[in-house]
């Protein structure tokens, strides 16, 4: 259990230099405050800078302007308090699933016994106990992404950032993974920021849905999802959801790319 995890982005601007052309502005004055233990979904049209924001929050990208702080300490580089899950699992193919999950612990210099202990807990958390010795290539896409989530949680981060983590999965598997993620959130209490293209996914998971404008990305609206927890798939048929979905869609309207 973590007791911290308040993530605040203030006026974050990022522009990418393009050779022989004007710089592309990915984010322009993006501000967001995520409370500890909250689940926030970020949704927006393609290229609106959603993933760019996650990279800034994960310390992989320095913004030209503005800052991101976690519990009042600024993020200035890759930070053990932040766990990042990429769109693809990005597992090392020559290592077993278990060795992939403990990779961050190995890099951080944990001794073998402690790594093994932590691995057992992580495998249990994501339901991969049977597959620790398998190679990533022997797993399904969904199981690989579970391993990637376990890896991101290895150092017990206060915030878990997920960049469209389930976009490669089929619709049914995706729903199951959404529920699993909620379960995992209930067990760890980690603050979660998830970037998604899917309105139902955003509504099912999040306490608040942040809708972004097209490039340069900023916050168009924040839609609170007032449904009680624990949530189930039936929620998606209810009236609260259709109202929230309509509101989100209205804010996305100008380009209407997200479905």
């Amino acid at each position, binding site marked *: 259990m973590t007791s911290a995890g308040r993530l605040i982005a203030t006026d974050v601007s990022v522009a990418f230099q393009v050779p022989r052309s004007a710089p592309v502005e990915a984010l322009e004055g993006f501000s967001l405050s995520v409370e500890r233990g909250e689940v926030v979904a970020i949704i927006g049209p393609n290229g609106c800078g959603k993933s760019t924001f996650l990279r800034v929050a994960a310390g992989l990208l320095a913004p030209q302007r503005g800052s991101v702080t976690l519990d009042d300490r600024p993020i200035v580089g*890759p930070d053990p308090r932040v766990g990042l899950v*990429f769109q693809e699992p990005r597992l090392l193919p020559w290592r077993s699933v278990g060795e992939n999950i403990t990779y961050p612990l190995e890099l951080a210099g944990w001794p073998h016994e402690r790594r093994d202990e932590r691995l057992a807990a992580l495998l249990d958390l994501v339901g991969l106990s049977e597959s620790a010795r398998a190679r990533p290539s022997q797993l399904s896409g969904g199981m690989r992404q579970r391993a990637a989530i376990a890896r991101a949680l290895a150092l017990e981060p206060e915030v878990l950032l997920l960049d469209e983590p389930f976009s490669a999965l089929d619709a049914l598997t995706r729903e199951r993974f959404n529920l699993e993620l909620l379960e995992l959130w209930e067990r760890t209490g980690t603050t979660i920021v998830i970037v998604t293209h899917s309105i139902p996914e955003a509504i099912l998971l999040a306490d608040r849905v942040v809708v972004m404008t097209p490039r340069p990305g900023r916050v168009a609206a924040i839609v609170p999802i007032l449904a009680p927890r624990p949530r189930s798939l039936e929620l998606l048929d209810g009236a609260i959801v259709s109202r929230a979905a309509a509101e989100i869609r209205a804010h996305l309207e100008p380009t209407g790319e997200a479905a």
Partner: protein
Amino acid sequence: MSRSAVASVAISFAVFVAVWKLIVLVGGYPLFILPPPEVVAERFVRAWADGLMTPHALTTLQEIALGFAVGAGAGLVIGYGLARSALVERLVSPYIVAAQATPILALAPLLALWFGPGLASKVVICALIVFFPIAVSTMVGIRSVDAGLLEMARSFRATRRQVLLTLEIPAALPSILGGMRVGVTLAVVGAIVGEWAGAREGLGLLVNLARGSLFDIPLMFATLVTIALLGIALYLVVVVLERRLVGVR
């Protein structure tokens, strides 16, 4: 190796020997042009039994081992530099290509003059010839490391050294070992060429002796067989290494 694999190797060898014998019979070649396989086999066994072949083979093997180690070591380091630094590539690659484009056969007499008829000149020639395929395969292997994996490692605060050891080397290993397969057979060529340019001992020297002052053509063929077997054995060492290191993927 499975039983069927052993059988197919045995059959292909039998066919090779049979064709050889047939050519000698049909062509009616004298012993000093093309000796028949059984004569070469007899000479091969005798040369090893009476201790003629052993010192030459050991000398050549030593030249190959040292030359390969030096050339491969330099190839790995320079190949990594080429992959990771545009400056290194711009400055170094013209010389590497120029050195590779100059036939080693043309350089060998010069190198023999500089480094003498002993071990050093052969090691240098072997190293030169081994260097290129391993430098290129290392460069290609390191460049092909997935940028997503590099970013992942960075997100977990991997140091430069950790990235090299846990990500770049394992990812580039299949490519590097491919370069080593080529390199190890070229190392045999390098040693023989080096010995031709001047040597006191070695299989290349023995080929020359057998053809020239000894005029023992079956011995020359027996030496060629030894060289070929040495090449095959070294190649298999790399293949086994490859199976061990990357076979599990």
